[in-house]
């Protein structure tokens, strides 16, 4: 067993495995719209576009350690940017994407500057304020935004040569954008920016000593993150074809954050899982209780957090870990289990990424994450 692990650990093998996984995923993703009913394809499309927003939020919360409760507002900004362009200037759909992305990037940059001074809780509440403030502002700007009635715009239409139905074409376009966005997020994290972000999250003062340009990277993290949310909003407009201020209430921002935490912070798959949760679980709740779907939905959120405190993406690892620690020691010491950090080095600095161990979970002092909201 350990030889296999070791073999897989080599670079070539890992790359090969990744390529295979990607190929398989692409094949499955490509087949989906021909197999499922249109409305199920629509649901998947929505999952994909929410995943883009969550991936952006993940950059900020999961990797940057800054909490935003205002990403619904960036989502709305992207959605409205696209809708206004389609409605007033009759641009093509594709033209709206770069504008929404760039606009939200700049908006995020503008927010990133004051966000530098704010920590944890305070940043969360100021961003929440932005989310609360945006709908009435959109209503006020009626000549441009259509006011409270919102804007109805054309949905994405398949070109004749594709021979695809509307939902299939939309799905493929959104899939393409999502895949690009997720890859971009992954590469961002592997780049200097990503390393700097993680260093910042784990230990701000140490990172500063190491020469990480704190303010620049924190601001950029916010901007990238907002850009992803804006792209997701733009896709939303393409898919739904309708925007209204009350579609983007603060509930959306809270839902996004909940989706991310449920999916798994600082994980590459977390956003997809979280998006699926946000998309499907309300319907499931309704199937379970027509009288009060909210009762079931609330309970399911709590239940998932009980079972997977570090999110669904961390669940397999936790299960395996729990199983392994119950097995006899000879087989249960895989090569990867060797800690790269000795316990003597103090409390785990990067708890969001390391699954809280069940054994330590109730002994707060060791496993407890840094209290981001203090200081």
């Amino acid at each position, binding site marked *: 067993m350990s030889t296999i692990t070791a073999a897989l650990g080599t670079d070539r093998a890992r790359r090969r495995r990744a390529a295979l996984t990607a190929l398989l995923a692409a094949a499955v993703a490509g087949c989906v719209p021909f197999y499922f009913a249109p409305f199920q394809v629509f649901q998947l499309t929505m999952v994909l576009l929410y995943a883009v927003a969550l991936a952006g939020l993940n950059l900020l*919360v999961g990797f940057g350690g800054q*909490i935003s409760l205002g990403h619904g507002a960036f989502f709305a900004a992207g959605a409205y940017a696209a809708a206004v362009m389609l409605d007033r200037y009759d641009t093509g759909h594709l033209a709206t994407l770069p504008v929404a992305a760039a606009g939200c990037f700049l908006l995020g940059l503008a927010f990133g500057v*004051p966000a530098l*001074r*704010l*920590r944890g*809780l*305070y940043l*969360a*509440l*100021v961003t*929440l*304020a*932005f989310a*609360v*403030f945006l709908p*009435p*502002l959109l*209503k*006020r700007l009626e000549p441009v935004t259509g006011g409270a009635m919102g804007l109805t715009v054309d949905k994405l239409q398949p070109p004749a040569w594709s021979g695809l139905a509307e939902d299939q074409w939309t799905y493929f376009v959104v899939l393409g954008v999502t895949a690009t966005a997720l890859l971009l997020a992954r590469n961002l994290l592997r780049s200097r920016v990503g390393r700097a972000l993680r260093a910042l999250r784990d230990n701000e*003062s140490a990172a500063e000593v190491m020469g990480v340009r704190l303010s620049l990277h924190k601001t950029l993290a916010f901007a990238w993150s907002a850009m992803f949310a804006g792209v997701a909003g733009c896709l939303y407009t393409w898919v739904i074809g309708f925007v209204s201020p009350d579609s983007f209430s*603060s509930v959306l921002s*809270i839902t996004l*954050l*909940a989706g991310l*935490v*449920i999916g798994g*912070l600082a994980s590459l798959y977390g956003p997809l899982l979280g998006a699926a949760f946000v998309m499907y679980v309300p319907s499931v709740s309704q199937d379970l209780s027509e*009288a*009060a*779907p*909210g*009762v079931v*939905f*609330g*309970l*399911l*959120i*709590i239940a998932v*957090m*009980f079972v997977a*405190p*570090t999110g669904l993406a961390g669940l397999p690892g936790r299960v395996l870990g729990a199983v392994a620690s119950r097995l006899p020691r000879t087989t249960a010491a895989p090569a990867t289990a060797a800690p790269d950090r000795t316990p003597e080095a103090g409390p785990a600095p990067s*708890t*969001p990424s390391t699954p*809280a161990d069940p054994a*330590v*979970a*109730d*002994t*707060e*002092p060791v*496993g*407890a*994450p840094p*209290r*981001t*909201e*203090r*200081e």
Partner: protein
Amino acid sequence: MSAVTDLLQQAVEGLGSGAVYASLALALVLIHRFTGIINFAQGELAMLSTYVAWQLMASGMPFWLALPVTLAVSFAGGMLVERIVIRPVRGAPELTVVIVTVGLFIFVNALAGLIWSFTVKDFPQPFPDGGLDLAGVRVDWSTLGILGVVAVVMGLLYLLFQHTSAGLVMRAVACNPASARLSGIRVGRVLMLGWALAATVGALSGVLVAPVLFLEPNMMGGVLIYAFAAATLGGFDSPVGAVVGGLFVGVAETLTGAYVHVVGEDLKVGVPFVIILAVLLVRPQGLFGRAAVERV
């Protein structure tokens, strides 16, 4: 009526709203002091407590008996919530706990709707009708009553925290739960007590504001955002800060909404937050929060 009287009248309305925000902000601050999280479900728990009071009165109990019973039920309920809902995720990342409270929010809101429907309920006003007339400015007894109760609760909390050994233990747990356990403090019990206290203060808040806001499951949803603002402005740690923050937010948004026409009633929700942002940029720990004094 003169312009000055108008202004004062609006300010009084602002104080009335501010007192409502402050009452819930007190409960938020309590939880935050103990656990370092923001409890999204605080307003909904308060709403649930208010329904308990309503149910008691609907079955014939007089208000002044229903109130202590409700507070006792809320106290026990707060302990149960900590034990059943929060304890299992202790030690998990803080955001996980916050999302659990979001789940609790959704659950309690829907549960109240299921049991009591979304129809507005009438809730008796404990304070007399009418009010004072101070040189043309009308101050309702209910506004004064809420302000008074909020002030008393704030004072009691201050005494509890600063001048009792139980309060000392609570502050120790809030400050450093790990060391508190090593000192032999039963942190679990103290946290249960913290949730119980917060739920009780929340219940009082709900009972106070229900006659003004009218009782229905979404009663506290709007208040919560403003209570967050109030608590943030006050530094999220200090009961005094929560109350001052609440009153400030209430007066600021009311006056801006009424007098600054560019802002108007629709955009006034932004006002407290601009102020908060300004305050935080100068004092990142809020008006009444303690600066971080640790030496690295």
